[in-house]
């Protein structure tokens, strides 16, 4: 976006939380306060990995009332495209990064009489900020948190200490305790909202169970950040910018465009928000729509593509960008 409101930040602190999760605290370089945000919001962190620009979205997990800095937690993903490895291996206290303004695509419904939060693994992060907000506002909530093992799970002990076992339920895969989904969605008071964040299979399971139990879809909320999937390289021509480019195996169209100096709009970089919607001028192959934004009809018509996650198979794709 031409009008940048991104904020240069200093890494104030790095904490190893579990063997695969690190927490990073960011403070603004200019000493100004961070903008306030609402629980469920994320920021896009821009990293300079040896001249290569990497941009990854991360949920804000610190208290929404704390404008002295932002905390995020990053799971080290072994076969990652490089962002999480870079954060884990390269980023040290004192380093400089850039973070975007907060964006909330997973906001609580403020009308909710009660909020049920269901987290799997690193999907806990948006709920940390949400629970802080619920508890400050004296709103009823409960968290159901599934982890692989007690050593792998992040923050479960702190959450139990802070909110108590009545509101925090932990399910440990290694101990054969699983989310009692059917029981959770049963007999909830009218006006209850349910939120789920975690692996895709878990999100699908929770939503399906709740819908089958008769929940209105307006009361069900989920956040799935899709990392741009890898695939064979392909050619794209950006018509307005007059740029011919190759999108690499581990690159998204958006990332390739940015690497060629094209200032394309984006927000979530995960196929959810719709901001990077781009018109297709022509295509002699198959679009692989990986987003959850376009309708099935829009995907089938091939007129638009979400360039942050979707790919292409064919000789050449021409975009109105």
């Amino acid at each position: 976006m031409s009008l940048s409101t991104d904020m240069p930040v200093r890494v104030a602190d790095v904490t190893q939380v579990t063997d695969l999760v690190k927490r990073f605290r960011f403070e603004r370089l200019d000493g100004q306060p961070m903008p306030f945000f609402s629980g469920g919001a994320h920021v896009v962190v821009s990293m300079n990995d040896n001249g290569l620009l990497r941009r990854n979205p991360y949920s804000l997990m610190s208290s929404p009332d704390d404008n002295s800095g932002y905390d995020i937690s990053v799971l080290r993903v072994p076969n990652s495209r490089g962002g999480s490895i870079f954060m884990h291996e390269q980023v040290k206290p004192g380093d400089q990064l850039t973070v975007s303004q907060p964006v909330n695509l997973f906001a609580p419904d403020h009308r909710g009489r009660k909020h049920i939060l269901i987290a799997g693994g690193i999907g806990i992060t948006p709920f940390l900020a949400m629970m802080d907000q619920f508890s400050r506002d004296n709103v009823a909530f409960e968290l159901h948190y599934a982890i692989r093992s007690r050593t792998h799970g992040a923050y479960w002990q702190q959450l139990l200490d802070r909110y108590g076992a009545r509101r925090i339920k932990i399910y440990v895969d290694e101990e054969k305790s699983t989310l009692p989904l059917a029981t959770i969605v049963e007999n909830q008071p009218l006006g209850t909202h349910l939120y789920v964040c975690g692996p895709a299979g878990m999100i699908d399971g929770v939503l399906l169970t709740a819908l089958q139990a008769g929940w209105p879809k307006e009361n069900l909320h989920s956040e799935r950040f899709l990392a741009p999937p890898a695939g064979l390289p392909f050619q794209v021509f950006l018509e307005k910018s007059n740029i011919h480019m190759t999108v690499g195996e581990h690159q998204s169209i958006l990332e390739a465009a940015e690497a060629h100096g094209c200032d394309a709009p984006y927000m979530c970089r995960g196929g959810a928000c719709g901001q990077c919607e781009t018109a297709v001028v022509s295509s002699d192959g198959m679009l692989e729509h990986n987003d959850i934004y376009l309708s099935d009809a829009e995907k089938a018509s091939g007129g638009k593509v979400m360039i942050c996650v979707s790919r292409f198979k064919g000789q050449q794709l021409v975009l109105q960008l």
Partner: protein
Amino acid sequence: MTITFKSETFRDDFTFRNSLYNIRRFPFPFDRDDYMYSVNMEPHVRGKADSVFENLVDVDEHYVAEMQDRAKVLKEDPLRCQALPHMMAAQWDVLELLMEHQAQDYPAHFTLTKDGDRWRWINRPMGIDDTFTFGDPSTLPYPPMEYITRQAQGDFCIVDQRDNNLWMDAGMVTTQADWSLDFDIGMNFMEWHGPVPLAHQIGIFDRALKFLLNLQQGKPTRRLNWTMTVNPRLDTSPENYHKWGPDRLTVTPENVGQKMHLRVELQSLWRLPRSNAILFVIRCYLISLEELVTVPKWARRLPRVLQSLPPEIIDYKGLTRNRPLMIDWLSKYDDGSPTSAGIHPD
């Protein structure tokens, strides 16, 4: 910057007038010689000095009189200010935003000091000096949105975002162009825009909604909207239609220059940080045709725009009776020369 506030009325004897300085800073809405609906949004960033775009929350010479008029409207009809219960976080967002902008850009008139959650707000033009606890409504004489919007020019709607739509869930609306908050409260974006002609068919509202759902923090946006009003009346509400509707019949070729006012809304939209709601500010500016024709470019352009309007828009904006009178009167000031692009005076 120190503003000299005017003492004037927007009802009864209608003593409202614009100073020469205020005429030239008027947000003339037509950037060409014709008009059609469009998603005419642009970033709400600081613009030209001595224009209404100089500051993002504009305070002008009519501030004190407008706030007095608002107080009168509220006294007669408290339902002009409403907020659904889930909008409390958004109310505090609005209070913070308006106090910070007014204090930052008009330090001679407003001061905000913060000691943690303990805030002191000084509004010199209105003689207010209050200390309160941010987040605790019991420490203010009114709920937070009402408190601050009794001290800020423009109408204010707070729209909640959920289910991929926007919902009119709170507002302070006393200077409106014939719509009612009491009627619209709780409606979604498509519902409250229901009455607008033509724009639905050309997909304006689908695109505008998509755009607003992605409105980002720190990147407010704005557009101009317009209509015409007989007499400088701020409160042209459906509730009071019986008071202002008949005014249309009082316009004659002799008084049209004084009576008819171009009414421009500077609409700005802001993503609110704590609530994720959107603040929709509808700031109304009035200028009589007599005042407007002192700027030659506008004098040439306005009759051309009025001439070009489609019948649906003429009807929707209530111009059917008086448009020919206005065109006749204004055409004296149009020598047929070309006009320069853009809205600002030459």
